[in-house]
């Protein structure tokens, strides 16, 4: 099936998300759609999948113009989509999820579960997508859930499969497996649209690459292009791919975490006996696939989550049991994972957001009242210093782009005297330009003698920023390694190799993916009972 997009334009108010986009997907190719967050990739694919309607332009399937008003239309035309956030019902089994919407039934609408199960088994065998049709989806690791999504699309006879940022939640090994599946699908004559902002992956798997910037197609090229070329196409100017930083000069230990145990909201142990330290003037980055306890670790350090056991010391003072404010006032700066939810009050003005943790103290407060003039003045200074692009400091924070919001959070946290800086996913959803800036500021902090703890699920970011890398897997630290450790080895640590006790996956059980072959061993829950 040949799929063509002609002059697709989609506007959201004054924002032009897609500006006359032309794109052709040939049969049997892996076509990467490369662009920064917010470049308009997902909007384009939502148009293609019938989730939103274009304001202008045409979709052409095998020479025939079509209109997709609902996802149902797109599915019938042979388009399948694996969303960034999986569209699976957590409490349903794999077979139920796969058949939902195209149910196999007996008389009177009774479900034919046996046939549904067989459908799943057939597809999973044919394309090497190992999955148990009777497993309940919420018990499956993310990588397997993704396979379920792919099977779902294949069952609906998808000829064009759209994968929206499919690698964000996978370990390096799982990514290799996914690439194997993608290649075997391509070889069976289907086409794949691979949406991503990761240059390495594009080069590894794509046949053709279309780069999108600010809603427009910049060019279509081949994986022969270098990473630097692709990056500058994506951003629109030459980009530093490496963070410019000198060797670290670590001083006295600032953060000491010992045997830390933390439970999640459901009472499961998600941080399990973690011990590590961060010294003044060094950056320690916690690597790991999302959901392996990193979030809870930072929340525990900040006093946002009760600690079940162990100790957290900052400059020798015990922090366990203290309130977040006490932790902040002990000289800790914090960039939370979800800036819109935890980092900012998006309906408050920029100026107000800049004093969220200082409003009760001089110079911003005098007695019980705020001093608006001081607040305004300092807001102006800081947004300038941190290059926050805004029209007015009285605008709500929601009016800013993701990158500028993140700079705002950083501006607030770094304008207090701090000895420890904790940043979770500091550049998630942030454009490359802002990322450079944020990284530079973080390195500056280190050089000025602050202990820095970064949590990131982007391995590139971890490797380029860190002086030491702590890898987390299922709540444990599986290894603390220097940043020049080979990626493969870090990848193995991220998958649990080297962990003590259970949870260790012997390297032999995850064969490197060759064409169409997939590791079968990990069709088991990420969290087994301990």
């Amino acid at each position, binding site marked *: 099936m040949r799929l063509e997009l002609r002059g697709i334009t989609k506007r959201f108010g004054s924002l032009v998300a897609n500006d006359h986009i032309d794109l052709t997907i040939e049969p049997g190719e892996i076509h990467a759609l490369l662009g920064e967050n917010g470049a308009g990739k997902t909007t384009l694919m939502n148009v293609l999948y019938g989730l939103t309607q274009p304001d202008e332009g045409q979709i052409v399937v095998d020479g025939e113009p079509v209109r997709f008003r609902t996802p149902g239309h797109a599915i019938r035309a042979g388009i399948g989509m694996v969303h960034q956030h999986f569209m699976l019902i957590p409490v349903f089994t794999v077979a139920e999820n796969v058949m939902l919407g195209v149910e196999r039934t007996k008389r009177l609408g*009774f479900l034919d579960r046996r046939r549904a199960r067989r459908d799943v088994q057939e597809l999973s065998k044919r394309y090497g997508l190992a999955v148990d049709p009777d497993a309940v989806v919420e018990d499956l690791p993310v990588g397997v859930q993704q396979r379920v999504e792919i099977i779902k699309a294949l069952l609906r006879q998808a000829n064009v499969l759209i994968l929206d940022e499919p690698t964000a939640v996978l370990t390096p090994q799982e990514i290799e497996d996914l690439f194997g599946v993608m290649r075997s699908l391509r070889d069976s004559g289907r086409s794949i649209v691979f949406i991503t902002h990761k240059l390495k992956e594009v080069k590894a798997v794509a046949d053709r690459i279309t780069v999108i910037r600010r809603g427009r197609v910049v060019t279509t090229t081949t994986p022969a292009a270098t990473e630097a070329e692709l990056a500058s196409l994506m951003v629109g100017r030459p980009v530093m791919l490496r963070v410019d930083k000198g060797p670290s000069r670590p001083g006295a230990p600032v953060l000491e975490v010992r045997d830390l145990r933390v439970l999640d909201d459901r009472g499961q142990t998600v941080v399990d006996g973690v011990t590590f330290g961060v010294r003044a003037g060094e950056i320690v980055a916690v690597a790991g696939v999302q959901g392996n306890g990193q979030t809870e670790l930072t929340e525990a350090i900040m006093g946002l989550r009760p600690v079940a056991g162990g100790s957290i010391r900052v400059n020798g003072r015990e922090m366990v049991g203290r309130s977040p404010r006490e932790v902040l006032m002990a000289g800790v700066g914090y960039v939370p994972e979800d800036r819109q939810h935890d980092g900012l009050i998006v309906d408050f003005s920029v100026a107000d957001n800049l004093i969220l943790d200082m409003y009760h103290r001089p110079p911003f407060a005098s007695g019980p009242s705020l001093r608006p003039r001081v607040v305004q003045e300092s807001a102006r200074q800081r947004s300038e210093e941190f290059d926050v692009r805004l029209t007015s400091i009285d605008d709500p924070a929601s009016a800013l782009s993701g990158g500028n919001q993140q700079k705002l959070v950083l501006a607030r946290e770094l304008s207090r005297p701090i000895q420890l800086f904790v940043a979770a996913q500091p550049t998630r959803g942030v454009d490359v330009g802002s990322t450079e800036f944020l990284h530079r500021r973080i390195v500056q902090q280190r050089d000025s003698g602050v202990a820095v703890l970064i949590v990131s699920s982007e391995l590139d970011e971890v490797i380029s920023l860190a002086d030491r890398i702590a890898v987390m897997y299922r709540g444990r630290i599986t290894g603390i390694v220097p940043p020049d450790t080979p990626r493969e080895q870090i990848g193995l640590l991220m998958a649990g190799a080297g962990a003590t006790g259970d949870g260790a996956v012997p390297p032999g059980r995850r064969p490197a993916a060759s064409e169409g072959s997939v590791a079968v061993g990990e069709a088991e829950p990420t969290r087994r009972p301990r």
Partner: protein
Amino acid sequence: MSLSLDVRRLSRPGVLESLSRARARVVTRTRVIGALSVGLGVVMVLPFGLGTKAGEMALLGLAGTTTAVHVPDMPVPVRPVCLALGAVCILTGLALMPRPLSRKAGNRVLGGVLVLFVFCLISWAAAGSHMDLVGLGNDTLVRSIPLILGALAGILYERSGVINIAIEGQLLVGAFAGAIIGSAIGDLWLGLVGAAVSGALLGLLLGYFCLRYLVDQVIMGVVLDVFALGITNYLYDRLLVPYQNSLNSPSVFPNIAVPGLSSIPIIGPIFFDANILLYLCYILLIVVHVALFHTRWGLRVRAVGEHPLAADTVGIKVIATRYGNIILGGLIAGLGGAYFTIGSVGAFGKDISSGDGFIALAAVIFGGWRPAGALLAALLFGFADALQNILGILGAPIPSEFLLMAPYLATILAVAGLVGKVRPPGADGKPYVKS
């Protein structure tokens, strides 16, 4: 819109508890059950056993009214029986505490102890006189009718992701419509249809505001309850009181003894000698269960209630599905309302449903959003109600308010984790907005 899936949550199965914690929970649970057994046993021994004169007998009637085969009354020597059964409960409780039981075994023990306790309670109350046990059973079922139907309605709503606090209002308008139509037209079947339709109409009101204008579903439900109470009170004063004879004196559905089944001793008179509404309950319980869990329709409904965006992406119409369930559930709740008038006493009275809709809601949660569970919960509430009634007649020295409190106490205990973790549908109460 907050419908995006939290991948972290998914990758961490709730079913797989960390073992030490699960064990701790089993231990506390077992201790609670053990303590409860001991406590109930003490009550059985002290006030029930020793509080009864030695040698006094209770006659428990098992005959019923329609049985062809005569079953003799069961004489129970109250004091020895209560002492013996109380001792059994205390010993069980004590034996239980040191060793943790599985959830299932724990529930069995708890159930057994409760049955023994209720048996002693009845014997004690009937000491020196006669109590119709079969009648009590039948009364329990009949009193459960509005609870069962209300709970089925609640299940249909919540499984599709709409919280229905308005069950009470639907029962009330159903009762009203049943009475007025049954009386004015004189056709009980039309009254039943009218009751169902009025429940559905009230449900549509909920749907219109909550699905279209995204009003908070809980608030809207409460508003509709107040509205239903207000409008039926007003119409009662203005219409039913002045025209009592023509508008508020319907006949009631006669009891139908199912041929064959009703002549089975004990079981027959309890289960198969009631009016059409009880049989409707049986049918609807089965139909709703099978439809929800074994058909395409049910799979789609549950998908909509768990994760509407996912359902939408595979071509399921979310809002239409919710409207469909609102109507179906409304019809069933309306039928439940008809019980209060044309299904039992005939004439409508102010606030005749008296909170049963809220108990039905509790039954939905207690029963884990499943018809079978809701049935059990409804029967428990119905039993407490029937028992309270019969104890009042016998003049037992126990305030009826205590027994009326029992089901709520049970609900609190249940919700506090005694029965086990129940999980509502993922998108329960959350409006669906397409971006």
